[in-house]
């Protein structure tokens, strides 16, 4: 284990401590931050903080309730100002003191009729503030709990008959997680694959093969290389995700709907359980290709084929969503290369039998271990063939003459 750790550290640090890597990692968050700052500036330039007024001809707002301003908000709520009559409101509008004013008709409580007078459509913030103001005043005489319930609106929640699964409007994230993770999966595999292929072919190109192989076992070497290079990709991904997650946490206090997002659902944990061995398996298979190839460019071309089964679940996404228990859906959720995306997607749409989940995950871990072994074998068989390719039948032991 100690030697796997040393190979891992060497492979990991030599990439992570390079200027090229640091620059690549910093570039994306910096672009995101720059775009965020640009967006805030644009909003600030367009922001109209002038109040909106109202004229209450129905006389129902004798003692109006006013929303408490949220001190934490970047752009404060637009103030709602009462005018005794339409003349005063019009004067204020002409002077540009207000964005516009609303006129409640005499029979507003029966008809709900409100008229807006403005030179231009008031800002979104002004309209939202006025709508909240009206809603809060309409329910102000009801008991507190009823007020809260009415103001929070409806939430549709669908539950299976046995109560084991449920889905609601706020649970869209649950479906988005496996889909987004699959995309990130392919991204990391492509990125890591490049590092890994170089790292494996490097032993041949630099002729360090025999020194290394008489120090560690091929399996230890490949395990260290695979996990090390995979961690480089995951580090890059993690650092890229930290920026948007930090942004979401920052925005939570300003955007209420973000608070309703539930990320750590069973689907999330299932995705994580499937993705880790899948990463190792695909990376190990790529390493095996690297060990059998003679040049980095040749290895890269072959490794491209691994992304095809990874993309397959997206081709059949409609079927997976509409009929998650169809035979093809089940097979794809059990087959190791398609399982990381298919299984969580099925899980989000149906009740997946426990045996299928357990079998799929267990198979992924077995395949990950087998792939590392195969990569080690490919390395052992291919290592001393400078400039010679290793045949597949030799790799799988079908050729009698092994080294």
């Amino acid at each position: 284990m100690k030697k796997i750790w040393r190979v891992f550290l060497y492979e990991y640090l030599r990439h992570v401590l390079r200027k090229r890597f640091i620059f690549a990692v910093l570039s994306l968050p910096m672009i995101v931050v720059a775009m965020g700052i640009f967006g805030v500036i644009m909003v600030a330039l367009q922001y109209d903080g002038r109040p909106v007024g109202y004229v209450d001809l129905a006389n129902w707002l004798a003692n109006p309730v006013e929303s408490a301003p949220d001190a934490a908000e970047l752009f404060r709520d637009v103030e709602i100002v009462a005018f005794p009559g339409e003349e005063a409101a019009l004067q204020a509008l002409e002077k540009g003191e207000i964005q516009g004013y609303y006129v409640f008709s005499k029979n507003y409580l029966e008809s709900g009729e409100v008229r807006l007078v403005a030179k231009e459509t008031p800002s979104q913030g002004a309209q939202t503030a006025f709508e909240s103001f009206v809603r809060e005043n309409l329910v102000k005489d009801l008991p507190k709990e009823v007020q809260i319930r009415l103001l929070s609106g409806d939430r549709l929640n669908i539950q299976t008959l046995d109560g084991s699964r449920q889905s609601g409007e706020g649970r869209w994230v649950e479906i988005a997680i496996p889909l987004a993770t699959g995309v990130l999966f392919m991204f990391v595999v492509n990125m890591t694959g490049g590092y890994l292929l170089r790292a494996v072919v490097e032993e041949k190109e630099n002729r360090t093969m025999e020194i290394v192989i008489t120090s560690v076992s091929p399996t230890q070497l490949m395990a260290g290389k695979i996990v090390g290079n995979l961690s480089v990709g995951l580090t890059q991904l993690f650092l890229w995700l930290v920026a948007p997650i930090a942004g979401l946490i920052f925005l939570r206090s300003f955007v209420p709907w973000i608070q309703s997002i539930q990320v750590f659902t069973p689907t999330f944990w299932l995705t994580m359980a499937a993705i880790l061995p899948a990463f190792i398996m695909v990376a190990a298979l790529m390493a095996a290709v690297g060990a059998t190839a003679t040049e980095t460019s040749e290895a890269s071309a072959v490794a491209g084929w691994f992304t095809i089964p990874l993309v397959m679940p997206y081709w059949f996404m409609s079927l997976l969503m509409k009929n998650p228990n169809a035979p093809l859906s089940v097979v794809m959720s059990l087959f190791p290369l398609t399982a990381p995306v298919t299984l969580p997607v099925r899980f989000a749409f149906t009740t997946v039998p426990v045996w299928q989940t357990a079998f799929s995950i267990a198979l992924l871990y077995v395949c990950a271990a087998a792939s590392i072994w195969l990569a080690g074998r490919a390395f052992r068989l291919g290592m001393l063939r400078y400039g010679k390719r290793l045949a597949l039948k030799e790799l799988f032991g079908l050729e009698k003459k092994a080294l």
Partner: protein
Amino acid sequence: MAAIQIDHIVKKFGSLRAVDDVSFSVESGEIFGLLGPNGAGKTTTIRIILDIFKPDSGQVSILGGAMSEAKKDRIGYLPEERGLYQDIRLEQALTYLASLKGLTGADARQRLDAYLERFDLNQHRKKKVKELSKGMQQKAQLIVTFAHNPELVIIDEPFSGLDPVNTQMVKDLMREQREKGVTIVMCTHQMNQVEELCDRLVLINQGKAVLYGRLEEIRHQFAGHEVLVKPVGELPIQIPGVVSRESHNGTVLLHLSQDVSPQEVLRGLVESGVGLERFEIAMPTLDQIFIEVVQGEQKVG
């Protein structure tokens, strides 16, 4: 105890018998020469010893048994096909390779410091390996071979790419290691280095071990019926038992008849009053033995 024991190993690549029924042993604490012309099967033999290749038949025992992962830390190996990671600093490459031999970070640094100083590479430790000369890289590879204080060292052509000063430094290091009890197997074409350093040797040709034993015994075995003499004055024209002579820089090589011994010739010279500065049985050089054996094998083949 033998550090390496090889019994009747055979390795075939297709129809080629790269190693054909080779047996020899390497004793602990000796410098052992593994010799042979190009393509003789030396490197394949080394790879079998180190478990890089599996033999088709025969037995290999290294450091008292079969090769294991734990034993790898007790062995230093400088292969023929060798290099270092090119795109990293020398210090980083050496520390990593030493750590794969089981050294902790602090131990590796301490030992590498001493070796870098000794091999005059200290001022280059921060440079990338690809910026170093071939000779410097060769020295760095020797450091990797010895840094973890191995009990057994196998080195293939240790002097290639080294100037005379560094060659001497490596020879001193090898002798010093032998004094400490380290076993060294040296594979080389430079016969003068073998004569200077090796205690015993095996010569492999066309996959077979054709010579094996102590260096002096082998030379005696190949010694002809000749003596070298350096007379104080002139040698008599007729010397009993001598059939011909060759002179070179004051030294004369006397070819003796088969029925006379060198001792009888010496006695005859002393009795006839010839002054002698030097009288010794003429031994063939290892180069001569090598050529004789290899060419003889080729003729037989």
